[in-house]
């Protein structure tokens, strides 16, 4: 019971910050904006006759492909065009309408906002320890009859609760807004996956649920990382910067180190778990979901151990 009151305190400190409301309102505004824009730009007639439209597109694409081959364009571009045509032909052959907008398709389209949520999560996680030092409130907090590790743990637990709530809340909001705009159907709507070897159908809803679960794990690792850095430096700016770098620039950094044998053991290589949803080829060879999960778990445990060890021992002079 005593520990819960610490979590309660931390929760109040998060939700009473005005910026927290921006974190909640901004994604909803984006959903509404994109949703309404999409809704007003869909031509229902085109949707009905999607086969004709797609067939025409395939013809056009094939013409372009021939041109590309004549022009000796780079192999990658030609391969991409070929894949694109294959996908469209598959859709025609198996009668999979690619353009039909439903709430589930809307959710899949909007899942890029998870990047933004990741950023918000990093900000909250970086701030929850370092702002106490910046304000000097840490000394009011640490003189209570609680061991330091309990205080830090309560902050970790609260940040995770907030992150999960933000993510699940976002998913729920996108389902609701998509449903209101495009109808709540589409649970069994398929989409096409091209993993480089073959094209196959997959349910959008399966994608959504896998995406939800994998992002929970990603966010947890981001929170732990931001915690570690803000505890070492007592600076939310450094913590936000480094964590964002890992999240956003991770893939770019990976390009430079991808051929190194140790690349697959880095945090960057394993942080993007959604790459496993469609079993696409990964930048670093030999990555699998279980492998990445194991690597992330080890990173998280080591980072937590360092964070708690530092926090427990450090003199508070602010």
């Amino acid at each position, binding site marked *: 019971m005593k520990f819960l009151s*610490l979590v309660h305190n931390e929760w109040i400190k998060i939700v*009473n910050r005005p910026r927290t409301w921006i974190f909640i309102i901004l994604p909803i505004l984006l959903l509404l904006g994109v949703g309404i824009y999409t809704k007003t730009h869909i031509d229902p007639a085109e949707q009905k006759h999607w086969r004709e439209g797609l067939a025409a597109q395939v013809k056009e694409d094939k013409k372009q492909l021939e041109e590309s081959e004549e022009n000796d364009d780079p192999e990658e571009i030609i391969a991409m065009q070929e894949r694109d045509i294959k996908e469209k032909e598959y859709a025609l052959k198996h009668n999979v309408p690619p353009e039909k907008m439903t709430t589930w398709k809307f959710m899949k389209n909007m899942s890029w906002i998870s990047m933004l949520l990741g950023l918000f999560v990093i900000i909250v996680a970086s701030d929850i320890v370092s702002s106490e030092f910046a304000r*000097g409130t840490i*000394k009011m907090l640490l003189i209570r009859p609680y061991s330091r590790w309990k205080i830090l743990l309560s902050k970790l637990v609260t940040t995770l609760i907030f992150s999960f709530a933000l993510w699940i809340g976002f998913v729920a909001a996108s389902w609701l807004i998509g449903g209101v705009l495009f109808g709540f159907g589409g649970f069994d709507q398929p989409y096409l996956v091209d993993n480089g070897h073959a094209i196959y159908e997959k349910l959008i809803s399966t994608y959504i649920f896998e995406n939800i679960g994998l992002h929970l794990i990603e966010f947890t690792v981001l929170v732990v990382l931001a915690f570690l850095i803000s505890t070492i430096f007592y600076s939310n700016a450094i913590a936000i910067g480094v964590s964002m770098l890992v999240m956003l620039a991770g893939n770019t950094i990976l390009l430079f180190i991808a051929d190194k044998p140790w690349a697959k053991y880095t945090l960057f290589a394993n942080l993007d778990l959604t790459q496993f949803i469609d079993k696409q080829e990964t930048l670093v060879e030999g990555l699998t979901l279980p492998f990445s999960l194991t690597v992330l778990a080890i990173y998280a445990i080591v980072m937590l151990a360092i964070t708690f060890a530092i926090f427990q*021992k450090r*003199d508070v*002079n602010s």
Partner: protein
Amino acid sequence: MSEYTLELEQVTKQLGGKNVVDGLSFRVKKGEIFGLLGPNGAGKTTTIRMIVGLISITSGEIKINGLNIQEHYEKAMEHVGAIVENPQMYNYLTGYKNLMQYARMAPNITKERINEVVALVKLEDAIHEKVKTYSLGMRQRLGVAQALLHQPSLLILDEPTNGLDPQGIYDLRTYLRRLTNKGVSVVVSSHLLSEMQLMCDRVAIIQRGKLIRIDDVITMDNEKEVKVHFQVDDVQKAFQLIKGSHPELVIEKDGNELIVEKAVKEDVRDMNRMLVMADISVYGIEWKTKTLEERFLEMTGKGGRSDEILVSRS
């Protein structure tokens, strides 16, 4: 239950190879107000930070209510209320929500108790305003409120009068006295030396991390270093007169005053009679003792003589 609320035994804090606090030992009795006095950088705040567990102890032992704080931190801190330097609050929360934060971290604090403490520090009108609108004095009072909230048996106040107006200081002093009557021990550090003298029962003087000495504040009757000031019309004449009759005493002239050191009651009676008989007008006789400040400055080697204060002799 120990008879001492707080015990420091050879407490040392080393920072960068230097002993910021060096073998400090003192004990605070139940129901007393104990002052920590020293120039800036003497180690007062470092000592307080060690007592409340904000920084580690290099060597030595600190006990609160008989419990070693390194072994039983949570249990020991249950009955401690503190302000370390300026009280820092969550600016974006109201005063009340700030107090609620600390109320949740202590057992069994009722709404009534919170309101009681708020009334005590006279923040009723502003308690539901955000702390960022508070003045320094209001923040200070909110800090006092959070320290008192859980009815601690040891109250540690680092510079508690900072930012308080004279009325606030008076109220705090009165309230602290009332707390000690209930058996609460208070440790105060302050740079307002005269304030310490009014507030404390005993004062520890600390310099460069070491304890210089511990003084009882209310011991004027035992005070050896009393000076008697005679206000007279003819200082020169009076000086020669008294010098002649009491050659063993140190006598000084200062304006229209004659200052006689280390005189006892009987001497003063005789001197007064002598002066009057010699037709010297005596306008006043005052007993003055060295202030804590003066003693403090003398001891910490800063020299200088500041105002002396009037002592009432019963």
